[in-house]
């Protein structure tokens, strides 16, 4: 719970852009983003981002990604709305760790089946898949058409007493503290997320491949949570250059406002794809509004010089790796956390 007792205000903004290489080849954006409530304000908030694989045999992965974010946000919202007041955290945690994953995969597969039933594969789609990779891939898709819809899924749920991070496949979730420290939720490592391979909603027993972290809040939540498809991180020279995004966006929101940042997202992401990976890029930002003001009394006086120094350091040396500072100062130390 928040220590000052009032319900914090949160907002979501986000954008998804077609990758530069997909612009060249005419492949539509394979990413999708969705949040509930649609207003993007209040609590609880649910954000989902998905990256359709876009390979020849995944020729409907743009639809698969859209269905992934739509069904996931709906499944989570329905569950949250069904909870009694006050919510029981143990119940939520158990649901997040056990039933939610199965339910997301089940509902996504149902949505895919509905789409396929309404729009069966055309010979043009199958011929195009054949032309790209040869007959053997077509043989893989036809017996298991769900492969054509393959996509990843990243979801964050922010409620007053907890935050849930849920990830299937590649992509990035960053947390940024009020001090501008950038971290990642402690999701278990997955060695399969390497090269261009990823775990996927279309895999057999996909629910087993989810990684999650349930954070019961007992201290200040992150000021920002960034959720992005892998095309964004892959557009930077290295991990340190990518992590700088977190502190920079916090600083930009503080200086110019959330709406101004929202307006610029499209340009930033398009530029990142053009000069970087060429991949589609999607970025969702969950923002705790009261953290933007840095209210007096929230930060102990002796820490204020450090905060000013950190902010000055950012503007003077924007490529300075944040990982060093992160290592010195653990984030959200006061919260009770569990990773699954």
């Amino acid at each position, binding site marked *: 719970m928040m220590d000052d007792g009032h319900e914090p205000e949160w907002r979501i903004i986000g954008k998804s852009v077609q990758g*530069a*290489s997909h612009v*060249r*080849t005419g492949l539509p954006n394979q990413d999708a983003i969705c949040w509930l409530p649609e207003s993007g304000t209040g609590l609880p908030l649910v954000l989902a981002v998905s*990256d359709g*694989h*876009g*390979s*020849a*045999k*995944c020729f409907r992965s743009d639809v698969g990604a859209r269905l992934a974010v739509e069904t996931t946000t709906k499944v989570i919202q329905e569950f949250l709305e069904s909870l009694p007041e006050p919510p029981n955290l143990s119940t939520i945690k158990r649901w997040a760790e056990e039933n939610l994953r199965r339910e997301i995969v089940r509902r996504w597969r149902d949505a895919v089946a509905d789409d396929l039933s309404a729009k069966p594969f055309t010979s043009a789609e199958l011929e195009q898949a054949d032309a790209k990779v*040869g007959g*053997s*891939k077509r043989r893989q898709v036809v017996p298991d058409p769900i*492969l054509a819809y*393959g996509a*990843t899924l990243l979801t964050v749920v922010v409620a007053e007493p907890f935050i849930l991070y849920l990830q299937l496949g590649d992509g990035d979730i960053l947390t940024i503290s009020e001090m501008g420290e950038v971290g990642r939720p402690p999701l278990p490592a997955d*060695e*399969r*997320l*390497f*090269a*261009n*391979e*990823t*775990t*996927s909603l*279309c*895999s057999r027993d996909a629910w087993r491949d989810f990684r999650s972290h349930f954070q019961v809040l007992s201290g200040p939540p992150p000021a920002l949570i960034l959720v992005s498809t*892998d095309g964004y991180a*892959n*557009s*930077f*020279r*290295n991990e*340190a*250059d*990518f992590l*700088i*995004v977190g502190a*920079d*966006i916090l*600083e*930009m929101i503080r*200086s*110019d406002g959330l709406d101004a940042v929202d307006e*610029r997202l499209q340009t*930033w992401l398009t*530029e*990142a*794809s*053009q*000069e*970087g*990976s*060429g*991949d589609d890029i999607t970025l969702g930002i969950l923002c705790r509004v009261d953290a933007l003001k840095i209210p007096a009394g929230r930060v102990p006086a002796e820490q204020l010089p450090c905060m000013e120094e950190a902010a000055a350091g950012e*503007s003077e040396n*924007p*490529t300075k790796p944040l990982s060093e500072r992160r290592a010195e100062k653990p984030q959200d130390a006061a919260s009770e956390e569990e990773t699954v």
Partner: protein
Amino acid sequence: MKKRPGGELATRPLHFIWIADCSGSMAVDGKVQSLNYAIRNAIPDMRKVADENPNAEVLVRAIRFSSGAQWHISQPTPVADFEWTDLTADGVTDMGKALSMVADQLKIPPMTDRALPPVLVLISDGQPTDDFKSGLKALMDQPWGKKAVRIAIAIGEDADDEVLQEFIGHPELKPLQANNSESLVKYIKWVSTAVLKSASSPASQAADSSSLVVNVPIPAVPDTGPSSANDVW
């Protein structure tokens, strides 16, 4: 306000490595001369393919093996600056040593995990004379070794197809058999263009530990026709 968030943007590196047999037998019947010609001849097409995808930074180098192995072009060289220096042939066929040296270069670091899958092209006309299996194991122990696009070209009938097939590591992909200069040129051009193009913008795909997966689609291999009187190797 800073122009955009984050540090330096960068395209993704794509390492392309020629692994060339320079044993004494490559000096017979003009094999090494044909190989030099084929690679040099393919450079303009390679540059064109690289230009078509500015989001991949194609970096080329070459290693030779005979008695031991040495980096022939050791620096990952942007394809725009890549020039071919002729190989010469003598000695035995220490292929395993070359693979273990390539494995060293595929470690992270110096590689980064944001790279595109590397392309490794092994060209040989004979049988390894050293511990090939150790070299291959060293290569496949590296994550980027496992995920590399591995193409093999057999020059002449004496090449060890079994060894080259082990290097490829996928039952549906076979070593390309070049029995004359013309077919060697075609294969080298194919790998420098069609394979490079495919590797430079690979789509994501579902990881599947239950079957052998080629993580980059391999384009159709050029038809070099049936065996003919032109075959000299």
